[in-house]
């Protein structure tokens, strides 16, 4: 047993869980000590979620045992887990938007407490842990960070001994992250243990005492994140050496490829974001990174750029063309390429095979030249080229897109666009949900076409990704875009200030 653990709070032994033929959890054993912040690290699909769902009573293990507070522990439901002292904050919030923060906390309680009494204890909690929330405001009006605080209060009000946090920072600005970390450290110092799930290695080094690394459903080992570099941990997580893509070399004599001016574009639905004051330019061999927390206009901006949505108040100049009134196909014909965020149902279609999926963005109608008849032999060749070059793991070009894993489908989608050798490539969340190695490959491919002269707009919520390969960065906040700055000149605390414009 790890010498750092004075006494064990939670322990699981030889947990196994299978889904069909997939071993999601393979003989997993971990120990969590009192007051410990314990990281659970692993790529998507490594088995992290399955394990915490078992601990929180959402799933039952096929075999294995758990002890909690020196007692046998096998919760049948989340309610059972909460009653025994395990709390959880999910990545996707489970709050009612039309209700106030306080009403949401009230609704989350398993046993009734008087409203007045609850109000007092909520205030006490939020004061002592720095969880500031206006209790009477409606959830719909709160930022992601504030909503998360409501979720944390809701979990803490039941006084858990073990708090599970599932990728809590994926929706937060850097500033909000810092205040979350303060809260978590204070909680730990007062005796609550935290099981912290993430694949962001830097924050784990900051926050956690111990890290258990999962790979393909099994524990690889337990490490001290403070004594290791993020890269070392990353390589353990992936199981092979990682390389870091370099941002493209910006040369001086470059043509302007795209300029976009948006005064104001109203959303189609009431839940959309109004785009306003957007002014951006991209040059040859340049990657413009557009960061920001999800739901600040990324989707809306992407639709304007692809041409899926046209608006008169928008000016888009691409080389010498005015393209704002062109549809996506017409834009592709003059050298643009797009990869939207949503892989299934937008960029690709699950019920169609890969050949047909290649046709969706058929460049310059290469395979439909002959009076609209499809040239299957060339299409086949093109599709196989993508599969080979981008190392897409599939049974072949006639496999359904839905049979590919998320990462492989993403490689296919990005590959399909890159193979068209675009002069301008606009991509939204290229590595979302993709394993670390594939992500590095995708970034490398993007950098390569930039080095060969293409202009790139990279929209991403992954700040590290943007800082890693962009030449310039700008941030979307509430539908407006900050002035693009050279990546080399920007400081992390400035980013926080720009992105945090919403709440802090």
């Amino acid at each position, binding site marked *: 047993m790890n010498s750092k653990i004075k006494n064990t709070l939670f322990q699981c032994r030889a947990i196994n869980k299978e889904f069909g033929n997939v071993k999601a959890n393979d003989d997993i054993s971990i120990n969590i000590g009192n007051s410990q912040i314990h990281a659970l690290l692993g790529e998507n699909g490594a088995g992290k979620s399955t394990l915490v769902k078992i601990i929180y009573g959402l799933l039952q293990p096929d075999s294995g045992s758990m002890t909690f507070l020196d007692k046998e522990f096998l919760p049948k439901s989340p309610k059972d887990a909460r009653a025994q002292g395990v709390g959880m904050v999910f990545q996707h919030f489970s709050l009612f938007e039309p209700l106030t923060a306080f009403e949401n906390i009230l609704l989350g309680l398993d046993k009734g407490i008087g409203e007045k009494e609850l109000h007092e204890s909520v205030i006490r909690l939020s004061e002592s842990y720095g969880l500031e929330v206006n209790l009477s405001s409606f959830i719909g009006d709160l930022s992601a960070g504030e909503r998360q605080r409501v979720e944390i209060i809701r979990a803490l009000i039941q006084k858990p001994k073990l708090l599970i946090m599932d990728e809590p920072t994926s929706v937060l600005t850097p500033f909000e992250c810092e205040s979350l970390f303060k809260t978590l450290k204070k909680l730990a110092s007062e005796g609550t243990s935290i099981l912290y799930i993430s694949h962001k290695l830097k924050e784990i080094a900051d926050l956690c005492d111990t890290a258990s690394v999962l790979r393909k459903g099994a524990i690889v080992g337990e490490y001290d994140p403070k004594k290791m570099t993020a890269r070392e941990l990353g390589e353990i997580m992936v199981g092979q050496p990682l390389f870091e893509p370099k941002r493209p070399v910006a040369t001086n004599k470059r043509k302007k490829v795209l300029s976009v001016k948006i005064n104001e574009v109203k959303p189609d639905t009431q839940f959309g974001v109004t785009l306003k004051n957007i002014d951006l330019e991209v040059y040859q061999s340049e990657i413009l990174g557009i960061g920001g927390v999800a739901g600040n206009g990324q989707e809306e901006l992407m639709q304007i750029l692809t041409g899926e949505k046209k608006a008169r108040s928008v000016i888009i100049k691409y080389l010498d063309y005015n393209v704002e009134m062109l549809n*996506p*196909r017409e834009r592709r014909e003059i050298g643009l390429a797009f990869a*939207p965020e949503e892989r299934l149902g*937008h960029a690709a*279609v699950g019920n169609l095979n890969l050949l047909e999926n290649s046709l*969706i*963005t058929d460049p310059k109608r290469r395979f439909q030249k002959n009076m*609209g008849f*499809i040239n299957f032999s060339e299409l086949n060749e093109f599709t196989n080229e993508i599969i080979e070059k981008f190392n897409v793991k599939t049974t072949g070009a006639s496999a359904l897109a839905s*049979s590919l894993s998320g990462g492989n489908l993403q490689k296919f989608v990005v590959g399909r666009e890159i193979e068209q050798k675009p002069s301008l490539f606009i991509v939204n969340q290229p590595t979302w949900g993709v394993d670390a190695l594939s992500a590095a490959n995708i970034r490398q491919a993007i950098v390569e076409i930039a080095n060969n002269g293409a202009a790139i707009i990279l929209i991403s919520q992954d700040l590290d990704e943007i800082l890693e390969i962009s030449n310039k960065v700008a941030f979307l906040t509430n539908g407006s875009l900050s002035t693009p700055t050279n990546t080399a000149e920007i400081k992390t605390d400035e980013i926080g200030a720009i992105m945090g414009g919403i709440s802090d």
Partner: protein
Amino acid sequence: MFKLIPRENVSPVLSLLGPLFSIGFTMFVGGILFYFLGVDPFAAIKMIFWDPLMSETFSTYSIPQIFIKGAPLILIALGLSVGFKANVWNIGAEGQYIMGAIFGASFALSLYPLESFFIFPTMVLMGILGGSLWSMIPALLKVKFNVNEILVSLMLVYVAEQLLALASLGFLRNPDGAGFPGSRNLSLYSSASNSELIMGTGIHLGVLLSLLMVVFFYVLLFRHSLGFKIKLLGNSPKASGFSGDNPNKLIFLCLTLSGSLAGLAGIMEVAGPAGQINIDFNVGYGFTAIIVAFLGRLNPIGIFFAGIVMALTYVGGELTQFMLNLPAAAIQVFQGMLLFFLLSFDLFVHYKIKLKGKK
């Protein structure tokens, strides 16, 4: 408790077995129905499925009849299948079929007794136009105001039936018909007659066109980018927009295409086997074609076979009517069961059933 789990890959064998099993089940349950109607179920089933093809007494008449009855079913089902693939639900082919007949017949009869080579082809085009115009009403409402095309197209069937009655009793009534409802007989008007291609069989141009259309639609759906666009729209409107297609244009195209084919079937029928516009001109081909489209798995080749099977139940059904005195409605129930069982079996084609263990 049972639990349904979606199959990851639907096997082609299962997907072919679905229609075959549903035909088998229809025979079985239909047989029980016939038994309670006081008819020997084995004789009835044999008379519906076997005698029209194999019996020496009936087959010389009924084999060509199968193709004649199958032609409108196949034509209409082909058109509908394209829309169904795009998630566009034209349920009103019956109305478009009637309007095609009225349009074409009105054109030809307005020129009566002029004899000229251009009358027949123009009449056919007018028939196609009539069907497509009738389907443009739900198409425009769908595209402009997002009105549900199922309701509009279905309700327009009843409007078309009223217009058919109006034509038969009013503006198209045969002036030499002694006051009986119904128009002049087009098959007796040689410039407008959709006459026999093979003497003594009744096989007409519509039958030939239905076969050609099977090939045409096969190429359209599987070899041409338009077919791909339709499939893409049906699977994901968002991906269709991302691809650069205009979903509204495709929806409009699918509806008018299916209307055109229904109109073509209508004019072929009125100028051929039916002969005249009359109150009882439509016999439900437009609705039965929906069954044919699904029984054929929205695949042109499948639709051809499904159309033939369905035509067999019509021809065989007629046989049982006058040989065994089975009511006509019993045959309609029989046809309805076919779709019912097909949809039921599709559940097993697309889902696995798992027994949930005890907790």
